[in-house]
Structure formats: structure tokens, C-alpha cells
């Protein structure tokens, strides 16, 4: 005897409750959280290093890598308080890993911004909510100008795109305008920054955007991630 049940029940990915829980923790501490997503070698760590001098102890970093604490040591040397997660093979961070990290890592002592550097991967991290306020995609000019078109999901979920290594533009065939156009096809309100960690180009601009978003968040007191369906800020100029 078989019976059919109509359920119409919504299913969320495992871990979304955890993401909501840690988002509340971040709110309680007044910490604005940025989830940096990009390919291996896109320049995520270098971007953090380039921002370090302007952040003067008010930002912390959680590093995600399969193995090693090399990135933690790099950003610590640059001046951040940092924590390393080793995923032992997993291709992305998930909310449970961030929750565990927070037990060994204090948000006290003037931390206003927390950067989570995801595992180098332009695909899977896009689908995982880490309790962050914004996701930011990082693409280097050396990867080619087709990346926004080829990896639409990460563009769709990111509030900003940081194009890195622009000092190499004379040496590589990368049409930055195409990259920006393809990104905005997925996300019309995407804010886009051209940066070079080496020359310092665009670093202040990106940092200003992060601080601006953090101010908006503190002012609004809303609990949804910025850029979610519920709350999306107007398009700002690149």
C-alpha cells in the first residue's frame, strides 16, 4: 500500500541555520564581514596585504586553505590578527568551519571588519553562506577576461568584483571592460574595482567601499546579508 503526501516544503542547504547563528554573533560584536572568493592565485592574500597599512588593527582575517598556514603568516606579518582554517581537502569554507574558528578566535578588541579569505576556487564557495555581510569576487587580469562569463554564480552572489594585478595589463590580453560587462550581466548593481597590490592602484577605493557598506549596515541594523533579495543597495560607480 503506498500513499502520496503533498509537502511543498522548502529545503535549505545544510548549514544555513549555522550561518544565521554566526551572522547574529557578528552583529553582536558590530563586525562587518567580507567573504573573499577567487581562484587560486587571484591575489586575495595580496589584496589583504595591500589593505593592511590602512586598517591599523581594526580588521581581522580568517584564512581558508586545504593545507598550510602560509597565508595566515603572511597576513599576520602585514599586521592583521589572523586565524587559519585547514579544510583538509574541502574545496570551500562552510558556516560550521567559521563557527568553530570563532571559538578559538576573539572578535573583541576593536575589530570592526573581518575578511574571510575563502579556499581558492571560483565555483563552490559561491554557494555557501558563511554568515557574511557581503561576498566579493576577486579575479586577476592574468586569468583572462572570460571569467565573469564562465563563472556566473559567483558574480550573481557577489556585491563587488575586485579585478587584481592591473599592473600586468600591458603584458596580458585581458579586456577589463568585457570582464566588467559580463559581471554586470549577472549582477547589474555590481561595484567593480581595478586594483594592483603592487602599485596600490584602487586599494583605497575598495577599502572605502567596504567601510561605506559597513556604515550602512551599522546604521540599518538589518539582519539580512547585504545584496540578498531583501536588501540591495543602489548601484555605485566603479
Amino acid at each position: 500500500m503506498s500513499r502520496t503526501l503533498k509537502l511543498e516544503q522548502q529545503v535549505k542547504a545544510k548549514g544555513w541555520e549555522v550561518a544565521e547563528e554566526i551572522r547574529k554573533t557578528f552583529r553582536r560584536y558590530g563586525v562587518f564581514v567580507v567573504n573573499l572568493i577567487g581562484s587560486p592565485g587571484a591575489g586575495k592574500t595580496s589584496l589583504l596585504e595591500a589593505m593592511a597599512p590602512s586598517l591599523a588593527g581594526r580588521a581581522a582575517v580568517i584564512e581558508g586553505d586545504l593545507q598550510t598556514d602560509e597565508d595566515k603568516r603572511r597576513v599576520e606579518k602585514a599586521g592583521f590578527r589572523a586565524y587559519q582554517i585547514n579544510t583538509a581537502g574541502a574545496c570551500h569554507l562552510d558556516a560550521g568551519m567559521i563557527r568553530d574558528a570563532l571559538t578559538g578566535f576573539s572578535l573583541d578588541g576593536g575589530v570592526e571588519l573581518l575578511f574571510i579569505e575563502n579556499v581558492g576556487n571560483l565555483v563552490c564557495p559561491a554557494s555557501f553562506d558563511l554568515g557574511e555581510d557581503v561576498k566579493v569576487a576577486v579575479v586577476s587580469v592574468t586569468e583572462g577576461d572570460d571569467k565573469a562569463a564562465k563563472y556566473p554564480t559567483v558574480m550573481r552572489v557577489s556585491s563587488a568584483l575586485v579585478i587584481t594585478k592591473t599592473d600586468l595589463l600591458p603584458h596580458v590580453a585581458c579586456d577589463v571592460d568585457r570582464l566588467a560587462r559580463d559581471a554586470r550581466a549577472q549582477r547589474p548593481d555590481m561595484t567593480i574595482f581595478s586594483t594592483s597590490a603592487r602599485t596600490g592602484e584602487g586599494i583605497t577605493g575598495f577599502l572605502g567601499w567596504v567601510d561605506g557598506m559597513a556604515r550602512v549596515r551599522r546604521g540599518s541594523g538589518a539582519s539580512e546579508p547585504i545584496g540578498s533579495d531583501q536588501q540591495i543597495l543602489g548601484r555605485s560607480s566603479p
Partner: protein
Amino acid sequence: MHELSFAEQILENVERIAREHAAGKVIRIRLSIGEMLGLNKESLTFCLGAVTAGTILAGARIEFEEKRAEVDCPRCGRLPVDPVGVPMCPLCGQRGRFTSGTELIIEEIELDEPDAQA
């Protein structure tokens, strides 16, 4: 591979409901997938196969239905849209709200019930 985390949640939900109904086995599960989730059906089927092994969901037939992205515009009403990140009305460009295409829903399940009198 976010399909795996969705598969785990489907297992958890269906298993609980099947237990509540004292079912011996789950024969069929019908899911509707919002296109904005970016879920790959083959991969979700594979993940479901893996996580349901040895459970009462093992061997259940999985049926899919795709839900197109739809935006609810305050002026123009509900309209299908391209699944981009911002819920913008395709007619007037005003910002609306996604009303479909963002969710994974267990529409129905078919259970084998050992007790025909139930």
C-alpha cells in the same frame, strides 16, 4: 558541490516525515528546483544516492521539476525574468522581489506503508 548539502537536508526532512507516518520505505520524491540555485540535477541525484544508501530513502525515484525565476514588480505584477542577482522588473526596470526560482522544494513524497489500515 553544494548539491551534497542539499541532499543531506532532503534526507533529513524526508526521513523525519516518513517516520512520522510509520512508512517502511520511500518510493518516490518529487522536488522542484529554482533555477537561481544553480543546482545540477545529475549531481544532486548522485549525492542523494550516496547519502540515502542504507536509509528508508534508498532506491527512491527522484523526480524533478524546474521553477523559473520570477519577479514580483510593484507596478507590473509577477513576471518571469533572467535569473540574475537583482530582482529587476523586465518591463519597467523597477526593483521588485523574487517570488520564484530561489528555492528547493520537496513537492511530494510517496511512501510505502506496511499497515494498509493507516
